[in-house]
């Protein structure tokens, strides 16, 4: 095992893991809760996106140790992730635009 890297980025303890788990559970309960409470329906989508984004970040930062680990790993994961996000937005724009604008007018 590579001593060097082990010592440099010591991993969090079980304690931290448990606390993160607790937050994750709370966030999930919130998500499902928000889903069932009619009051939230107008803002359902943004709220859900924020909540799941928070869960995503927590897992990646703590369980996958990106917070403490080498920046190289952050780059290897983050750059494609960013790319993926941009691609998704572009695809939604291009395809939904094309389908609704043209499909509606469409024959065939």
């Amino acid at each position, binding site marked *: *095992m*590579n001593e*060097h*890297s082990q010592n*440099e980025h010591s*991993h969090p*303890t*079980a304690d931290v*893991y*448990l606390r993160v*788990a607790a937050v*994750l*559970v709370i966030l*999930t309960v919130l*998500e*499902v809760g928000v*889903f*069932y409470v009619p009051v939230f329906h107008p803002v*359902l*989508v943004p709220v*859900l*996106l924020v*909540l*799941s984004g928070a*869960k*995503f970040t927590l*897992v*990646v930062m*703590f*369980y*996958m*140790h990106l917070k403490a680990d*080498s920046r*190289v*790993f952050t780059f*290897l*994961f983050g*750059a*494609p*992730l960013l*790319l*993926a*996000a941009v*691609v*998704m937005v572009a*695809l*939604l724009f291009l*395809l*939904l635009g094309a*389908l609704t604008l043209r499909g509606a007018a469409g024959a065939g």
Partner: protein
Amino acid sequence: MTHAASAAAHHTSLGLDSRKMAFWAFIGSECLLFTSLISTYLVYKGKSVVGPYPHEILNIPFTSVSTFDLLMSSLMMVLALAAVQRGDMRWGKIWLFSTALLGLVFLGGQVIEFTEFVHKGLTLQTNLFGCTFFVLTGTHGAHVSVGVLWLLTLWVRALQGKLTQANAMTVEITGLYWHFVDVVWIVIFTVVYLIQ
């Protein structure tokens, strides 16, 4: 897997474990894979010309339990890693096995869900919702299956005494994969199940 660990003993220019680095690159690559699947799901949302439609069929309480199950498996996974890193192989084995078990439970849930959907008339051939839903969640399920197989392999190795503290990196990499699969589910759960 276990033996390649010695690769890390060599000099590396970034002082990082090569396998771990390769794995992060792999996960980066997987981001694009799941993005393509999720984008397709979103693009085709509401485009099915016949039912059943998502709101008629998706079972939120059931899937919430699955989601919770997968989250807990992630917790087991980090606990397993922490145990192996301390050299506590007794707990290491227990946590590894529980992770795999929770993974199996998730897969079981998916089997039940799929079967129910088929009974309700939703198959891959039914409509666009069926196509995109089954291929997206099926791809995720396939990832979980690979993860379970992998975890069980590690567990058996641990039982044989061949997985030790020296192989903590192997467990860490397994964890990376497992957590990534969990993270993907977090997105799927929100995008497919909650945002309808």
